[in-house]
């Protein structure tokens, strides 16, 4: 329905004392929490542009040797049918190593069936060799794009080029995309080393940890990246970064491109085809085919007496309450803080309203010939929609009531984002301290409400709703982004985890910081098979839950780690692994896949059921054996957050610390 003030404004009211509008039931926008409007032309700056997917692929030697190029080419080819926006979708490719390679994919009337490659070696003054032909309509040039993707791995097979002209390639991609906007997917396998925006190997400097300069390691090194990010957002381009290198590739700088354009950072450390190919395939396919809102802006309003002060997530702030999101989808979450303007709230409820303006394009794939001309006309026009979510929260005068209704997940999500933003301007130690301080202060406040009346001297008092809050805060302090110091996490992994945590929805974030631990050896040994058999119960994350005779799976939403106990029966072990373990001691090379025995099949079924719980990412799977150092430590034991590890306290000690600090007034 169209927004129109004339029909909206006037209506009779029902008889007192209710005084409601008579047409309240017929108007969904007055009674439903989530409503979508079709926006008239006054709301559009320009008519909706065709969706554009542009790929910037690094073809240096590390990309080719790891098999990455082949998987990327195959996945893109398989997703071409499902890209949204048919038949207007456009696409383009630029590959680069020490030079830029532009690919002309236009199937013009002179029947260009083979893609044409133009190499530009001038990195200082980047220019486009074919200004108009680098972006092609996918449905028109489909056969050329297919031919290009088939030949891509072969084209660069024998390369020995180690350089990467990332900055010039980025500028070239910007020049191509600046008119239309769209999504830019960057596949980077090495440190940018040539041209503007080249990064030094500043790496992980042990001496910097603990000093005031520590946070600069996690900030972009060159202002080029932030400036480019601002330019990208201005032209409605969203950037997703796929990073694959095993050496340092400065994700802190690369990720800032994704951060300010509303994109995402995908990190596959030390990419190996065997381990990561399924994960890459699934996530890339999801990225290309999920429902995306292009050129979106989000505005947040609230009732009288409150004001939104800060926003956390991946976006660009266009105004004090306007978030610019060049491409947004359902996998992203945003957090915002509000502050009370007046000291006394006189209303009974406070309303919050979030509105997202976006053009609507269906993601149905309409296959070629059956499309009539009428259908083609309708589906090629985009309409602009506004999705409005409205929520009301009651105002309470009693602090204890507010504590009772507190939502631990939301609190943890916000605290996590605040801590990561703090880690960009302070030491890690200080960021963790401020987390602990916030926890202690809130518990102290609650304690002060009750301790006098009940005279409970020596106990930790906390509300039922926040009973897991200390555990989650401990898990945050031990998460990859915030843990320890130099030796506890590689700088790239730390930054990638930080960028990841800024966009995760609440349930995924809670799962990431407190992974699920399940014992599965009973499931594997069950003789009679039923669907949905023994339900997997989640165990506490401590070494006491581990039985040396068992098989356990640790699931954090992004990876599975399968832990095999030391005293596990050897035939079970061999069946899972698929080979004789004695002759193959190195478990890091073992790929967990379906072998030809019943146990392995059951294992796959269990993993599939675990994966199905959350369709937004595909967990890669690794095996670890008890006692196999140092892999067991780095992969598995650091995830057991309730245990004490070097430098950080266990759960019991943590609670004691919190208790003691909240006692002192």
């Amino acid at each position: 329905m169209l927004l129109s003030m004339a029909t909206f404004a006037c209506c009779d009211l029902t008889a007192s004392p209710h005084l409601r509008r008579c047409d309240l039931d017929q108007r969904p926008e007055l009674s439903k929490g989530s409503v979508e409007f079709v926006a008239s032309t006054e709301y559009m700056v320009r008519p909706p542009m065709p969706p554009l997917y542009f790929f910037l692929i690094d073809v240096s030697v590390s990309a080719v040797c790891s098999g990455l190029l082949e998987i990327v080419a195959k996945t893109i080819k398989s997703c071409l049918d499902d890209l949204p926006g048919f038949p207007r979708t456009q696409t383009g490719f630029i590959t680069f190593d020490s030079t830029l390679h532009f690919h002309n994919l236009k199937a013009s009337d002179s029947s260009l069936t083979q893609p044409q490659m133009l190499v530009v070696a001038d990195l200082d003054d980047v220019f486009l060799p074919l200004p108009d032909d680098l972006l092609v309509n996918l449905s028109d040039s489909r056969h050329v794009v297919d031919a290009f993707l088939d030949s891509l791995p072969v084209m660069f097979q024998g390369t020995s080029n180690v350089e990467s002209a990332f900055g010039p390639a980025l500028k070239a991609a910007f020049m191509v995309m600046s008119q239309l906007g769209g999504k830019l997917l960057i596949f980077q396998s090495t440190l940018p080393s040539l041209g503007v925006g080249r990064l030094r190997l500043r790496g992980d400097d042990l001496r910097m940890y603990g000093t005031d300069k520590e946070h600069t390691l996690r900030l972009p090194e060159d202002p080029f990246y932030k400036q480019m990010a601002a330019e990208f957002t201005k032209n409605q381009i969203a950037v997703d970064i796929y990073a694959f290198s095993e050496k340092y590739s400065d994700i802190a700088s690369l990720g800032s491109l994704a951060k300010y354009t509303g994109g995402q950072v995908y990190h596959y450390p030390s990419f190996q085809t065997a381990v990561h190919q399924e994960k890459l395939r699934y996530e890339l396919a999801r990225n290309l085919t999920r429902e995306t809102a292009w050129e979106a802006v989000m505005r947040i309003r609230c009732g009288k007496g409150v004001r939104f002060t800060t926003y956390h997530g991946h976006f660009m702030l266009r105004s004090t309450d306007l978030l610019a999101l060049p491409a947004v989808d359902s996998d992203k979450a945003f957090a915002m803080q509000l502050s009370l303007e007046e000291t006394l709230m006189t209303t009974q409820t406070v309303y919050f309203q979030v509105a997202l303006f976006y053009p609507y394009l269906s993601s149905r794939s309409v296959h070629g010939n059956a499309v009539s001309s009428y259908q083609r006309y309708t589906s090629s026009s985009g309409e602009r929609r506004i999705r409005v979510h409205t929520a009301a929260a009651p105002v309470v005068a009693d602090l204890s009531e507010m504590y009772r209704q507190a939502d631990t997940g939301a609190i943890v999500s916000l605290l996590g984002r605040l801590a990561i933003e703090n880690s960009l301007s302070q030491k890690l130690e200080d960021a963790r301290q401020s987390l602990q301080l916030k926890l202690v202060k809130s518990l102290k406040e609650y304690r002060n409400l009750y301790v006098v009346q009940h005279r409970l001297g020596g106990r930790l008092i906390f509300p039922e709703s926040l009973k897991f809050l200390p555990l989650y805060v401990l898990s945050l302090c031990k998460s990859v982004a915030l843990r320890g110091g130099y030796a506890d996490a590689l700088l790239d992994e730390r930054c990638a985890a930080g960028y990841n945590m800024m966009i995760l929805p609440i349930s995924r974030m809670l799962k990431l910081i407190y992974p699920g631990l399940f014992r599965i050896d009973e499931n594997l040994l069950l003789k009679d098979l039923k669907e949905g058999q023994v339900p997997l119960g989640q165990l506490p994350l401590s070494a006491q839950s581990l039985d040396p005779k068992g098989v356990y799976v640790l699931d954090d939403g992004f990876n599975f780690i399968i832990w095999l106990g030391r005293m596990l029966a050897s035939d079970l072990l061999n069946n899972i692994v698929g080979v004789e373990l004695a002759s193959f001691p190195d478990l890091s090379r073992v790929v967990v896949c379906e072998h030809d025995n019943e146990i392995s099949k059951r294992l796959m079924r269990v993993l599939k059921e675990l994966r199905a719980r959350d369709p937004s990412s595909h967990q890669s799977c690794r095996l670890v054996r008890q006692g196999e150092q140092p892999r067991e430590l780095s992969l598995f034991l650091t995830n057991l957050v309730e245990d004490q590890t070097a430098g950080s306290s266990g759960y019991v000690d943590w609670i004691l610390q919190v208790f003691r600090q909240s006692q002192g007034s």
Partner: protein
Amino acid sequence: MAWELLLWLLAFAAVIALIGLSAYQLICLSDLEFDYINPYDSSSRINAVVIPEFMVQGILCILFLLTWHWFPFLIMAPITYYHIKLYMKGKHLIDVTEIFRLLNGEKKYRVVKLAFYCSIFIVVIYRFVTTAVLLLIEEDDQALESGIF
């Protein structure tokens, strides 16, 4: 004496320019706050005048130092020091991505600078007028001397 007058004339022009540039930046920031312009335009406008302002202010300060007018120099010195510190840290330009977080801080910084420039303006006006009047009186004296006798 004529050189003095020239100096104060130059200083007068420079301080007017500094006040103008500083006020322009402040207006750009408050336009941004009230949503009259977008952050890209605002930051590019401000960044265009930051370096010229630094240069004019630096030249003025050095001029005061060289001609040994210690009081104006003392007023300008803290600003020069702060400018040099900002330049060394690379924070003198406005970053589009961070501008909303730092909006209040940037506005406060520019209001303080404007206050400094206004106080310098008062000093410069005073010295300019007194120099001009003294010069005219001396000329009158000289005219008296070389007139009849």
